């Protein structure tokens, strides 16, 4: 039986997908959107991609705000929060900017791990003064424009930050840093990631709630439902072994990254995770797990209990909580 990992089992196709390897069709691209269909791919892989796109692509956002003067009606932290949510140009952040916590060029923050933006606005005339994202000035503009506010509206103002009355003033300095949306949503490159499979519910993964008729009450996405003539709909006979094979993605960016870069960035994120793990797995294989265990603690190896209860890792070593200092933490090979 030919086994070639990602492409399934060849002729023997165990689950009917991945016999030909993944396939991608781009259906629609706009300035901030990319709609594509991923086919012959497992649900697990497609979901990994969705999750990576949604939460783990690095971007830049305001992280620290030093408020020098704020006599506006908005409290300092309110302003800081608003500033954090302003989209900043993030193309190239992944490669060209360090995480401040990992940056070895500075103790606090520097040009290699941050971008400083300043805002100084004072209302001197009667009436209301609007303070917009365009009023933010980048202290030292970078060649790759990382950290500049994304301004694309017709008036060229960008998002409104605050409104000032005569005599009120805002003067502050922001430090924008690299981060991911898993830590804070301000770093999210997307506003939403549309994800759908099996629009006609042929796999019965869904059990629709309805008042009188589920079909009437639950709208289907026509474009997805008729994808490649797949409208056979509900009366198709149910195949319990069927697996989803087409995944409809609709990536909608917030403007900090181009939609293509978001998709590629998502894949890169997954690959980086895998590479990291492969790297630590390194030479382990040569000597095998036994050696690894032996090294961890010469007498750590105990056969699994007769009742087959793996899962009781903690109990094997004297019943301390699994997450205590016992097996995992201090017990690792080497020391830290």
């Amino acid at each position, binding site marked *: 039986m030919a086994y070639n*990992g990602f492409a*399934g*089992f060849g002729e023997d196709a165990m689950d009917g997908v991945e016999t030909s390897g*993944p396939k*991608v069709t*781009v259906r629609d*691209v706009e300035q901030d959107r*990319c709609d*594509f269909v*991923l086919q012959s*791919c*497992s649900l*697990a*892989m497609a*979901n*990994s*991609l969705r999750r990576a796109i949604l939460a*783990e692509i690095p971007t830049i956002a305001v992280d620290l705000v030093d408020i020098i003067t704020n006599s506006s009606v908005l409290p300092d932290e309110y302003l800081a929060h608003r500033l954090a949510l302003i989209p900043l140009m993030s193309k190239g952040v992944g490669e060209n900017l360090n995480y401040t916590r990992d940056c070895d060029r500075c103790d606090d923050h520097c040009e290699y791990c941050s971008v400083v933006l300043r805002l100084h606005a004072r209302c001197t005339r009667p009436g209301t003064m609007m303070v917009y994202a365009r009023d933010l000035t980048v202290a030292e503009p970078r060649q790759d424009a990382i950290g500049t506010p994304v301004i694309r509206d017709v008036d060229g103002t960008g998002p409104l930050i605050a409104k000032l009355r005569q005599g009120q003033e805002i003067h502050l300095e922001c430090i924008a840093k690299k981060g991911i949306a898993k830590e804070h949503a301000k770093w999210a490159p997307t506003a939403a990631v549309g994800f759908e499979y099996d629009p006609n519910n042929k796999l019965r993964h869904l059990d629709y709630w309805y008042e009188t008729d589920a079909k009437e009450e639950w709208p289907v996405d026509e474009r997805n439902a008729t994808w490649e003539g797949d409208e056979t709909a509900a009366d198709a006979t149910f195949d319990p072994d069927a697996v989803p094979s087409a995944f409809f993605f609709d990536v909608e960016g917030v403007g900090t990254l181009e939609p*293509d870069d978001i*998709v*590629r960035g998502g*894949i890169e994120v*997954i*690959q980086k*995770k*895998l590479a*990291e*793990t*492969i*790297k*630590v*797995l*390194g*030479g*382990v*294989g*040569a000597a095998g*797990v*036994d*050696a*690894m265990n*032996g*090294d*961890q*603690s*010469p007498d*750590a*190896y105990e*056969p*699994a209990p007769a009742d087959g209860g*793996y899962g009781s*890792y903690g109990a094997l*070593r004297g019943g301390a909580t699994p*997450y205590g200092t016992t*097996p995992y933490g201090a017990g*690792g*090979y*080497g*020391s*830290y």
Partner: protein
Amino acid sequence: MSETMPDAPTGEETYDHGEELLLGGVKKLVVLPGASSHAASFQIEKEDHTMGNALRYFVNKNPDVEFCGYTIPHPSETKMHIRIQTWEDTKTTAVDALRRGLEDMMEACDVISEKFTEARDEFDAQQS
């Protein structure tokens, strides 16, 4: 790196652990106690369902693998556990199966990336 235990079996002293990656003083990968050559549980630091579920799937695709499952034992700890058991009558060890799974997933990512770029270029060509 490789700290030689005083009573480690001879011959294992030059044993290479690969590169150790410490994340805030915590190891990226730890083999949980109770492992044997064909059955092991790995603890992977700073990973979640994003890698867990797909990795489980790719490891399971290997015909030498008897069982593979993953879990996130506690929601507020960023640890992912993956259990791999391979058939005793095969040469594939649990570590081999894990590495194979990681490599397969990596390859799948390469293909998707490549196919996406192709499809994207094709879309542009169609538009013009």
